[in-house]
């Protein structure tokens, strides 16, 4: 085993971070919740960064910008340091969103964020659904072939870049629910609410 991961959870006022922090602690992470990026350099010196979040894309992005997180995120991801986006924290990495108007995202990954269609089925998607493994990745280590994870969302990602898709899920259409490039990863589902399967993924993240 490597060193204990020192994991910073970004608190930008978008939803509950209690569960994320507790689930990370339960899987061997030393966790610090950070509301301001300066703290990353000052005293904590994290090895791992987690961007959680539930809520509206535009609101989330403007809160990240206001608190000054965007340059740090770009730098961190540019250096391929261990990163995990969860739910809204995944969607924000993409090019643009059409949630309540059009917003430009962080454009770390190519693609867009679109809504499920209430005409095709119930929205939001709430519940357990499979994530089909498309490409192997260290985060998949020790997990069953197509495990169920807990999802709660009304919007999802579409991308033409198959190289970043690590897993996909079918609801109305087949969409990427797990993406990543090297050590920069993101999931649409909630590992912190997915019992043992989710905890196994968070533990794998700590080993990145």
């Amino acid at each position, binding site marked *: 085993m490597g060193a204990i991961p020192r994991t910073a959870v970004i608190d930008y006022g978008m*939803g509950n971070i209690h*569960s994320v922090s*507790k689930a990370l602690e339960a899987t061997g992470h030393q966790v610090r919740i950070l509301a301001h990026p300066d703290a990353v350099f000052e005293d904590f010196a994290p090895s791992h960064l987690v961007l959680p979040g539930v809520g509206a894309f535009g609101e989330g992005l403007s809160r990240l910008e206001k608190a000054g997180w965007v340059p740090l995120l770009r730098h961190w991801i540019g250096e391929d340091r261990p990163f995990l986006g969860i739910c809204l924290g995944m969607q924000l990495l993409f090019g643009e969103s059409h949630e309540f108007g059009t917003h430009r995202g962080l454009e770390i990954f190519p693609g867009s964020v679109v809504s499920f269609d209430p005409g095709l089925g119930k929205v939001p998607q*709430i519940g*357990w659904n499979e994530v089909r493994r498309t490409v192997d990745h260290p985060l998949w280590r020790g997990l069953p072939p197509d495990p169920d994870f807990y999802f709660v969302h009304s919007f999802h990602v579409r991308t033409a870049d198959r190289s970043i898709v690590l897993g996909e899920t079918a609801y109305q259409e087949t969409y990427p629910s797990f993406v990543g490039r090297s050590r920069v990863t993101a999931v649409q589902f909630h590992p912190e609410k997915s019992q*043992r399967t989710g905890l196994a993924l968070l533990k794998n993240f700590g080993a990145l």
Partner: protein
Amino acid sequence: MLKKRIIPCLDMKGGRVVKGVCFEALRDAGDPVETAALYDRLGADELCFLDIGASVENRGTLFEIVERTASRVFLPLTVGGGIRSVEEIRRALNCGADKVSLNSAALANPSLLTEGALRFGSQCIVLAVDVKREGGSWRVYSHGGTRPTSRDAIEWIVEGVRAGAGEILLTSMDRDGTGEGYDLELLERVSRAAEVPLIASGGAGTMDDFRKAFAAGADAALAASLFHFGTVDLRDLRRTLYNAGAPVRPPLPDLPEERP
């Protein structure tokens, strides 16, 4: 494929589980956190905490229990009972709840659904509706089923979804506690009318009742005493439903003993 959910519900009063759970594995059958941890190990898809005491002075206790539970059990958690304001919704979510269910407060003030949905997203706003059959329709009751309202169930649910509710927790008061099965006609009617996920509640008595509720259009089925009294074992229920081809999560292999 999105799975149908099995949801044990813990009714609480003054911070204790009412109708204590009959399991030898539990040191304290009245402790909601221990009970939640047990249901997690047995493979519940989600948990619901309902504060039936719902007194204002107990609200702090409820939030403290949610926080302790969410620190130990990593599955979706819905909290309800006496939550009346956006501030109380915020507190519940910050303590680690994923969803908040609103009942009487939404009837008194439907805009609470809208305010909650705008602030936190409709996915965490559950509209809980208690209904009683009257001929071919169902009347909505408030205050824990003690007060009839002038509202028709289907109309109120459609209005509630339009106002911002992202899920419906529908309890048949006629069936609640009877073990005669969920009110399938009610589930069919509401499922057709509401465009959001539907949780069936009230009447589960056998494993097959769950399968029937799912077939009638429910996205999840909730039960309390059935699980608490051990009438149906959660693991057996999942295995049986799964083997019968119901769209539920597969059974998990037995877990090793929990770490101390």
